[in-house]
Structures are given as C-alpha cells and as structure tokens.
C-alpha cells in the first residue's frame, strides 16, 4: 500500500442556529459509521476526553454523544501560539435501524470513542436463498 500523508484540517466548530444556554465553542467530532450484519458501529474522534466525561444517549432513535474536555490541564498555561481551539464535543445522529439498547457497548481508546449498537433481533437482515 502506498504511504499516505494525513492532511491537517481544522476542527469543525458547531455553528448551529438558535442560542444555547452553554457558552463557548462546541465541536463536531469527525465520525465513521459502519454497519455489520449484527451491529451499527460509530467511531468518533474526541481528543482530550476521558471515559468518565462521555455521555451517550439513545432516545427515540436519536443517538446523542457528548464529550467534555478537561480544561484544568491548561490551568497555569498561557497561550502564545494556537492552531486549534479546545472545547466540548457534541454530535447527534438519527439511527434508522432498530437497536437493542440494553446491549449498547462503548469503549474509548486514544481519544477515539467507539460505540457498538447491536441491532434488535427483528432488524437483523435475513439472507434469502434463491431456489
């Protein structure tokens, strides 16, 4: 495989309409979504967010993920040169597949959150044999 360089790109800042009660910048995490036979797998890049600071909700087919960054690590630091800003992450998806909410499983490794949403039994596709 040919080596590929990672292109630098800005973090996506959420610029939604309407006012929020929470002040400050929010970022929309870069996300991959895959679907296997048995599950929908969502991987989100949330650098600086530890596992205690992630909130995942699935309500009426809407998946909402929030990640809170710890700004305390910047406590004594004075910024002199910046190329990106820091802020909390939030992103919402409508999940069109029926999910077995009781078996949702999430892990976070090196700033990447992976959420496995197992399909409900009735949503698992059946392979149709052609006779």
């Amino acid at each position, binding site marked *: 495989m040919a080596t590929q360089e990672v292109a630098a790109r800005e973090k996506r800042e959420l610029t939604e309409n309407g006012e929020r009660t929470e002040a400050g910048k929010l970022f929309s995490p870069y996300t991959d979504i895959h679907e296997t036979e048995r599950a929908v797998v969502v991987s989100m890049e949330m650098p600086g967010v530890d596992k205690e600071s992630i909130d995942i909700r699935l309500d009426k087919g809407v998946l909402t993920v929030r990640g809170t960054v710890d700004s305390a690590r910047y406590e004594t630091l004075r910024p002199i040169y910046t190329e990106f800003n820091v802020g909390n992450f939030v992103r919402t998806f409508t999940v069109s597949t029926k999910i077995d909410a009781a078996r949702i499983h999430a892990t976070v490794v090196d700033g*990447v959150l992976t959420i496995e949403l197992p399909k409900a039994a009735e949503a698992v596709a059946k392979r149709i044999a052609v006779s």
Partner: protein
Amino acid sequence: MVIRVRDPFATLLGLQRAMEGVMGSDWFGSRISGSGAYPLVNVFSDGEDFVLVAELPGVKKEDLDIQVRGDTVRIQGKKSIADDEQASVHRRERAAGQFDRTLTLPAELDAAKVSAQYRDGVLTLRLPRAENAKPRTVTIN
C-alpha cells in the same frame, strides 16, 4: 494572561477566548516550518518552559516518534484505522496515514529535560529552555 480556575465553564470559555486571541499569531515568525501541517499544534508558556499540545486521536503511543534537537521539535508517526472488511460504510470522515512535522521554536531547548505525555489522544510536550536561553534578571545598580 494566566488562566485561573474557579468555575469550569468560565475557565473553558476563558481558555477559548485566550486561545482565540493568539490564533494565527506570528510568534513563530517566518521560522515556522510546515505551518498548517498535521498535527496542528498549540504552544503555551508555563514559566520558562514551552508546552506544546497536539491532538492525535487514534494514534497509538508506540506509533509516535518525537525528536528534539537544538531549537527544533519533530513529531513523526502514523495513524491507522482498523477497517472491518465485512462492514458496509455509512460515513467516513476520519483520515488515516503518516505524518511528519518539524517545528522550530524561538529558543534553544534542553533536549535532556524534555518530557512527553500522551493521554486520550492528546500529546503534551514540556520543552524547557536551554540554560543559556533562559532570561536573566538584570540588577540595576
């Protein structure tokens, strides 16, 4: 401006504003090489030390290589994403590949005292100035 914590929201907002204020500053001057290359970096000062922060989500610690020499810092590595061949793709926004960025700081660094921490996809390098690059207090006679 030094950021002091009281209320976490006020802190984050204060931090964001302070960082916004120096966004695109010419602190590196013309010396910055590979400006805008991956990974993007922030530089802070903490007393006499520089603190460099880069976000590298999905990069494994063992795939990171950091070198410090004189006044330059080189961050090299690769970011890989495990792909499940069986899975169908709904959305692909994350990017994988190799990176190599060299930054030249405005002071000589003490390479032996540099420390690196990698946690939750964030690399933090503490870069102390070399002894001869530290500011001296001048006594007025």
